């Protein structure tokens, strides 16, 4: 009985939000976003270690909840989503419009499903749902700035999905089934896991907005509505980090060189977050820098785990705590920020001015800070500007290409040429076929 109940809960946790995403199904419900969270909430009380197999779904998949990371993450998600759902409803004293609620519930379904998934395909599917749902959420719930951020996020998302799809295929070719455990085993024994590892790392790095791919995080935090900003840490970033933990054969392989590079990137991200945060400290930006900082910390731990499996086996749980603290930390900062702004019309801390009369070490630190901030944030736009200049030159060439394309399509559309081409194709088929016979 208990197992049936928990299996039902496991299925309902992602399914209910998915169903409620249809406006018709939730029109009579008082607080659909909160109701959608109920199965997940009850699931937290179920004894750990339950799972079900769904061999008829997709290419055979399953849902389950393990006792460690999964539970903790689920608890964190339920809490933050509940908070966000309340904000969604009370913003400006009226319920959100229908489209926003639908996007919200779709993202929720993807998020819960990704946490509960027990295999690569399930995780991939749900995280794709979550990603595009969140894109829609950003677009629907923000102003022009958020929409610009969403566009960047979308490009990253598509590239990330391609990379992960590739990784998925490699995993399918290597492992006997696509459960996390067997993929991890197979990859550890595989002769050349390099491509898989790099695809997974690239894919989730793109999704998580790991420095220096964080460009969309700042405007997203700044200009989306509170309910969405609250989720930024817990949804796209945390799930991508979870993906890294789940997909990589951590604690099984030892790749010192790769680990070192990743550690270096993590340290750089943390440094950047501290320096840029110090330089441009303001409460509105603080959550973004906090997210970058914790992501950096996580990356460092990950790098250590990759270079030495022993470290991971002993300290691996730290990564999950980091993910959870990321979600909570960002949420608390956003909430505090919102509360402060609402309370005392508090806009932002005045930016620190470089003071010539200050001691030399302070001036130095300000200079270093400014330099680091420029390296981190400003190089990308500058690069983009340079690239745009290049693009302008390329555009002319592209226009020629387009004209050629249109011209050849018009050529193909002409009856006489098209039918002649058809004739030619028929003759070629015969010749190619007959050649082998002769």
């Amino acid at each position, binding site marked *: 009985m208990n197992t049936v109940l928990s299996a039902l809960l496991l299925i309902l946790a992602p399914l209910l939000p998915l169903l409620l995403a249809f*406006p018709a199904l939730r029109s009579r419900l008082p607080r659909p976003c909160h109701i959608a969270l109920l199965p997940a909430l009850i699931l937290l009380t179920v004894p750990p270690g339950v799972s079900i197999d769904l*061999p*008829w*779904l*997709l*290419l*055979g998949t399953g849902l389950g909840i393990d006792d460690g990371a999964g539970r903790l993450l689920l608890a964190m998600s339920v809490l933050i989503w509940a908070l966000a759902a309340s904000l969604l409803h009370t913003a400006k004293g009226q319920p959100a419009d*229908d*489209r926003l609620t639908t996007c919200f519930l779709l993202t929720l379904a993807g998020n819960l499903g990704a946490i509960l998934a027990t295999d690569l*395909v399930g995780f*991939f*599917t749900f995280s*794709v*749902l979550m990603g*595009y749902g969140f894109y*829609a959420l950003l*677009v*629907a719930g923000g102003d022009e700035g958020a*929409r610009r951020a969403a566009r960047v996020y*979308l490009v990253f998302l*598509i590239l990330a*999905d*391609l990379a992960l*799809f*590739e990784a998925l*295929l490699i995993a*399918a*070719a290597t492992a006997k089934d696509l459960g996390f455990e067997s993929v991890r085993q197979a990859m550890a024994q595989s002769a050349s896991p390099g491509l898989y590892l790099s695809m997974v790392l690239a894919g989730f790095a793109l999704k998580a907005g790991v420095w220096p791919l964080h460009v969309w995080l700042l405007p997203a935090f700044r200009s989306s509505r509170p309910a969405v900003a609250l989720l930024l840490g817990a949804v796209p970033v945390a799930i991508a980090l979870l993906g890294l933990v789940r997909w990589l054969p951590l604690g099984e392989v030892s790749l010192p060189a790769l680990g070192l590079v990743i550690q270096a990137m993590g340290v750089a991200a943390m440094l950047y977050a501290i320096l840029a945060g110090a330089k441009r400290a303001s409460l509105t930006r603080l959550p973004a820098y906090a997210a970058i900082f914790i992501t950096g910390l996580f990356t460092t731990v990950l790098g250590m785990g990759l270079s030495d499996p022993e470290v991971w086996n002993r300290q691996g749980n730290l990564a999950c705590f980091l993910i959870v603290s990321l979600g909570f930390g960002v949420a608390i900062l956003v909430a505090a920020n919102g509360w402060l702004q609402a309370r005392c019309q508090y806009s932002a801390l005045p930016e620190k001015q470089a003071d010539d009369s200050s001691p030399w070490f302070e001036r130095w630190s300000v200079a270093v800070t400014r330099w680091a901030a420029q390296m981190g944030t400003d190089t990308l736009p500058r690069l983009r500007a340079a690239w745009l200049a290049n693009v302008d030159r390329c555009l002319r060439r592209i226009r020629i290409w*387009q004209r050629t*394309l*249109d011209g050849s*399509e018009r050529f*193909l*559309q*002409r*009856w006489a040429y*098209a*039918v002649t*081409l*058809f*004739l030619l*194709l*028929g*003759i*070629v*088929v*015969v010749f*190619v*076929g*007959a*050649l*082998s*016979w002769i």
Partner: protein
Amino acid sequence: MSDIHWPVIVILLPLAGGVACFLWPRRSVLLGLLTALGVVACVAGLGWQVVEQGAQRYAVGGWGAPLGIDLYADGLSLLMLTVTAVVGLGISVYSSGYFERARYGQDRARHFWPVWMFLWTALNALFLSADIFNLYVTLELLGLAAVVLVALAGGADAVSGAMRYLLVSLLGSLFYLLGVALLYHSFGSVDIAILAERVEPSPAVWAAMGLMIAGLLLKTALFPLHFWLPSAHASAPAPVSALLSALVVKASFYILLRLWLEIFPFANAALAQLLGLLGAAAVFWGGFQALRQTRLKMLIAYSTVAQLGYLFLAFPLASITGWTGALYMLLSHAAAKTAMFMAAGNTLYFGGHDRIADLDRAVQRMPLTMTAFALAGISIMGLPPSGGFIAKWLLLEAAIRSGQWWWGGVLILGGLLSAAWVFKVVGYAFTRSEAPHEARAVPATMEWTALLMAVLAILLGLFAPWLLALLEIGSPFNRENAG
């Protein structure tokens, strides 16, 4: 129950329905819908029979091949029949809304139904036929019905498109028929199974192969022979566009597949590579052209050109996984493209135009239609958990297994291209427009059928194992090319 002649009923019922619609035009909508429901039920009956008893061979007139004509139903036929039934039911319901109201008056509806029923007859007969001359007759029935339906839209675009389509269709059929003549005079039979036993390479067989494959490629609109498709598909009434893209072009692909697997198994690898190459070219060409379009229906039509290319990627892979992937692509494309054309039809109906740049005004007020378009787009892009994802997955797997990974590259880049145009359209859902806009209410049936077809395209991904098991019946791919 098991001795009911399901294959025959599946063919005769829509034929009788078409005749009834013709005799009593005022009741044609009701008669048509009833027939559609009946056909779906009968296909389910046939499916049950095939699943229970394995592949079915039915000798018409009791003569049996080579003297008579045989009908043959295995997993492949059943799959095609099922797609046709489901999409056909959706299109029937959609059309009952589309043709009834203002712009397309009663008159159009009265002409639509009998022809659509005959087209359905042709499709069912085609998927069940085991006789290459009989296939020619069904091809002609199909082609003429499709042309008539395109011309139903009226106006210069549609009539010119229909004329071009008719000429192309006849040309393709004649090439096919000459091939049939050569095969018959070589081996004294037109039954596929008997030909498969007797066939051996000779100049006449090569000539027949060239003629038949070329004719069928023309009808399938494989690049660079797609010249007739965009104008015909884009100018037809919306349900007809859906029908043509989802089912009609697939019919000639089905014949091609049957001939390739059974009669021309000795066709060499170079030819398969050629077809794969053309398929890859179609994916890119169609994708780029779709991006360049300014009208929604034209865009969808070019994306059909691209999606048809994927089907041909299975030829060089030549493994069971590859064929299954191509067929799954066919399946999910049928559902997704139906939903897309229906969504386009809704916007056209609503705002009176389908210029992509001005879509925002129409789209804002039709959330269901936009959802349908976006869901269908997910399947076309090949994102999980849609049917398109499973199809690409299978094709990629086949590509990697056979060591020809570059076909996988085509799949991924093609997905990127389709993502580009899908987001180009969907992006307008989120831009706000304040300008008031003239609009007509779209019947709820039209919006809901579009959405249901799109949801179906997604569900196809979720329940893949069942459908894949269906394809195993009669193991159509196990003969020669399996590898």
